[in-house]
């Protein structure tokens, strides 16, 4: 459906000059007429847009990008720190549970008559709750 003269016409439109011979062809070719209408309008619009574009200076753009990069780097560092804190807390809780859990379970059994398996189940539930809370907090902060 396209015409072999289309590339030639596009070049002419970009140059802003259409030779008489080509003009004659365009008048008799529906495909070229359509191309001239659409491409001509787009090229005019582009020229207007470029003329009226209010873009920042290159230096200003570089400065903005650096500020943004620095902010992102800071945010990343803060996130790493937060992860470190959360990991430390989790390890501390695990150590406390490991070393003092059996003693607490034995004490509870001795003084309150609570079964050891029940104490262990309660301790495990508390640990799970703590881990969930820490994980949730990290997700929210992220």
């Amino acid at each position, binding site marked *: 459906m396209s015409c072999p003269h289309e590339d030639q016409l596009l070049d002419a439109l*970009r140059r802003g000059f259409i030779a008489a011979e080509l003009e004659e062809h365009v008048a008799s070719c529906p495909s070229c007429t359509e191309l001239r*209408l*659409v491409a001509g309008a787009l090229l005019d*619009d582009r020229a*207007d847009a470029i003329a009226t574009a209010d873009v920042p200076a290159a230096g200003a*753009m570089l400065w903005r990008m650096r500020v943004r990069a620095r902010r992102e780097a800071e*945010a*990343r560092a803060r996130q790493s720190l937060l992860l470190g804190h959360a990991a430390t807390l989790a390890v501390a809780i695990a150590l406390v549970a490991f070393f003092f859990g059996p003693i607490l379970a034995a004490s509870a059994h001795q003084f309150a008559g609570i079964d050891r398996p029940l104490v262990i189940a309660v301790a495990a539930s508390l640990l799970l709750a703590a881990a969930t809370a820490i994980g949730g907090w990290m997700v929210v902060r992220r």
Partner: protein
Amino acid sequence: MIEKMPFSLVLRGATLDGAALDDARAAMSDDEFRAFYERTARPLWAYLSRISGNRHDADDFLQETYYRFYRYRAEYESESHRRNTLFAIATNVVRDAARRTKGRHSVPLDHDLVTPEAPAEHRVMVRSDLARAMEQLQPAQRELLWLAYGQGASHAEIAAILGLEAVSIRTLLLRARRKVAAILTGKSS
């Protein structure tokens, strides 16, 4: 099909630490960047404003595009390869924004096309008609038409920028062109 990511651009969501920024600088010096920016900023802004349909958003998109480009470390075979990468990033920036703000009404193109310079009346009419016609197109058709006729990109370049098969460009372009022509000539509602 047009949602395919061109050039395997895995830029979204990435953050930049100091070392990565140094790497990015090494990939393109400040002077190189300034020169490239001077050559491309205005045509890129024109592309962004026309495919997004909003010149105010285009300002933000411009900044986001150059930021992603600046962070994107790549070996460029030529100036056109570098420019095509920039336009591919710009296309993704606009698509990302469209996905985020799906359904939000943007400022119609014909409202912001009337510039303070007040060009001749008939020219304003043509531009206004074009804006209306572009508004009725799919975003991908707008991108295609602008790149092909506004930007003068080859079919291979358009395929690379938009992440399409090169063989399908001609057909898609003809279809989009026909639609705009019909609207401009009043043969379509």
